[in-house]
């Protein structure tokens, strides 16, 4: 019997736009970026070439690796903080709130995305400055002033501005889909509240939680605004290094090297996370 695969034209027609979109706006630019990483700059003009000089130069510079590890660390830290801060709110919305309240809360969480991220970031100046609102409040109880702008703390606050609402929404949606009878069964069988979360809720939410953490990490890892405006560019993250590299001598090929390293890192992290998310639990024999 012939197993010849017939092309389903109908299905292909519907898939074609997204395939074309990905080819034109993702694969094409990535291929171009890889290509220009081998170009050279002469008299501020990129010249076609196939040389490894940009790779060699960037990967042997200490400051590149300092920025790399710092970016990896601060993005991971902010993703972890976002996940932890989001959990209580998401748990309450998923298990304690009424359907209407949950819908209203999710809507409110979407509202910050209506305004520009840059504007939201700049608004932190008023709150975090040494003469700002937060320090003024702390001053009333005899604390501070604390330096919060132009610090790692400022950077993380900026990242959370970007990721926390998203983390709450995704965690809420994940936990809202858990079969509540399983949670009730655990409680009826004598499982304490924290143990219920640890042994029932979290395992059932694993995939959604990993994907949420991955989103938070990706957004923070590639963000330029928070470390530049709230972190004072010290230490510079990889997106800042890309800007610095293009600013001086118009070294787009070297900036492409940094960008490719960022993409490779994101691929590795995303691949590991997805593997982790969909790994089947070991069944006890």
């Amino acid at each position: 019997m012939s197993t010849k695969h017939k092309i389903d034209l109908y299905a292909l027609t519907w898939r074609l736009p997204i395939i074309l979109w990905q080819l034109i706006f993702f694969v094409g630019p990535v291929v171009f970026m890889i290509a220009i990483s081998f170009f050279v700059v002469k008299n501020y003009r990129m010249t076609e070439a196939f040389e490894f000089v940009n790779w060699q130069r960037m990967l042997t510079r200490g400051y590149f690796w300092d920025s790399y590890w710092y970016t990896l660390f601060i993005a991971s830290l902010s993703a972890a903080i976002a996940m932890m801060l989001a959990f209580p709110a998401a748990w309450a919305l998923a298990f304690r709130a009424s359907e209407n309240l949950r819908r209203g809360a999710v809507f409110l969480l979407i509202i910050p995305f209506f305004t520009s991220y840059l504007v939201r970031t700049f608004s932190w100046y008023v709150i975090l400055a040494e003469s700002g609102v937060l320090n003024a409040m702390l001053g009333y109880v005899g604390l501070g002033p604390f330096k919060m702008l132009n610090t790692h703390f400022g950077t993380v606050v900026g990242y959370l501005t970007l990721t926390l609402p998203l983390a709450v929404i995704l965690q809420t949606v994940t936990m809202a889909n858990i079969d509540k009878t399983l949670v009730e069964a655990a409680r009826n069988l004598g499982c304490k509240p924290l143990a219920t979360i640890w042994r029932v809720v979290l395992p059932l939410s694993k995939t959604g939680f990993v994907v949420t953490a991955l989103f938070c990490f990706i957004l923070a890892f590639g963000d330029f605004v928070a470390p530049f405006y709230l972190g004072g560019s010290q230490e510079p993250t990889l997106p800042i290094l890309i800007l610095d590299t293009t600013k001086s001598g118009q070294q787009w090929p070297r900036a492409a090297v940094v960008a490719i390293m960022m993409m490779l890192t994101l691929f590795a992290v995303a691949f590991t996370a997805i593997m982790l998310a969909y790994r089947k639990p070991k069944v006890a024999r």
Partner: protein
Amino acid sequence: MEKSNKKQQKHYLRRDVLRIGGGVVLSTPFVGRAWAQTTEINMLAWYGHGEPDMVGAFEEANNVKFVPKYYAGGDNMLALIAQSPPGTYDIILSDGEFVQQLNAAGYIEALDPNDYPFEDMLHEDFTKFPGHWDGDTLYSMILRGGHLGVSYNTTAMSAEEASSYEGFWKPELKGKVGHFDWHLPNLGMMSLKNGNGAGLWDLTGDQWQAVQDTTMSLRQQVGGFFDYGGTFNGLKNGEMLAMCGIGDWITGVLERDGAPVASVIPKEGGIQFTESYCIGKGSSKADLVKSFIQYMLSPEGQVKSAQMLAYPGFCVTKAGRAMLQEVDPKEAKRSHQMDGMPNDPIALINEGRIHYRDIPQQQSLEDWNDFWSEYKNA
């Protein structure tokens, strides 16, 4: 009968269409001419130079419209030109030290010195400004300048402390010293602090190493690296109490708003940025651009430049300075553009305390930039 009426209606309709259509076609050249009356001048400049406070009056008087493309830094400017077809930019505002490179790459037209008021310059250096001439051929016309030194919050530093770059190392300023995020002026200042004086850009290997060491020793004091907006905000909200790499071009704007900030030229010397106009190679509007440059060098244009909202710069012509003193004595006084004032920019040049900004002579810009990245990561 009815049929013939319908035919007639159709006939009229067809005639109407033909009449209106013909009218539209025939009037097209007039519409085109009406549009063409406003000439667009493409400008490549630092932010602010193409804004209404600078070009509005000229636009109105000459029925032109400036279309500015803004850049940040000479490298960025060169790259934008290199990536554009010849004739894209009619007028280019360049930092003085980059004019030579613009000329070497063939991006700018020669100018006729007789078109410009060289006899009215406030300082003889401005008549034969380094890099603006190639032999006897003029390529760029100086517009204005500004001096970079120690910028500080007057409530946190005394004028005496600010009179030396040493002030940046004041223990009370730990975490409160900011950098304008561009290696050239910052490392230039560190070079001046090391006593390199007029040779600040021409560093031997040992001198360059010493400049790096001095810079690194400042790192513990540093609270951040900022662009224009960040520098502005940092000084305004008191997050930064001293700033390296800038001068009156930023503190002047804040000072006008009453902020307690100032810039001084320390005893080790200061750096001058110089902004100059060039006519883009292949521009079809060279005559208009020439008129605009002449206008900006007229007393009226010089006053506009000194009062520029984005960032101030000092006048380079005597008539411009005199008019500024007459129409805006407050700004003339604030920017020390009065004869006899201790920080008069022209007097500072005469005293030999000012060095024109340049690019490194014995190292490459890449070397300086690489070190700057290392410094930021330290």
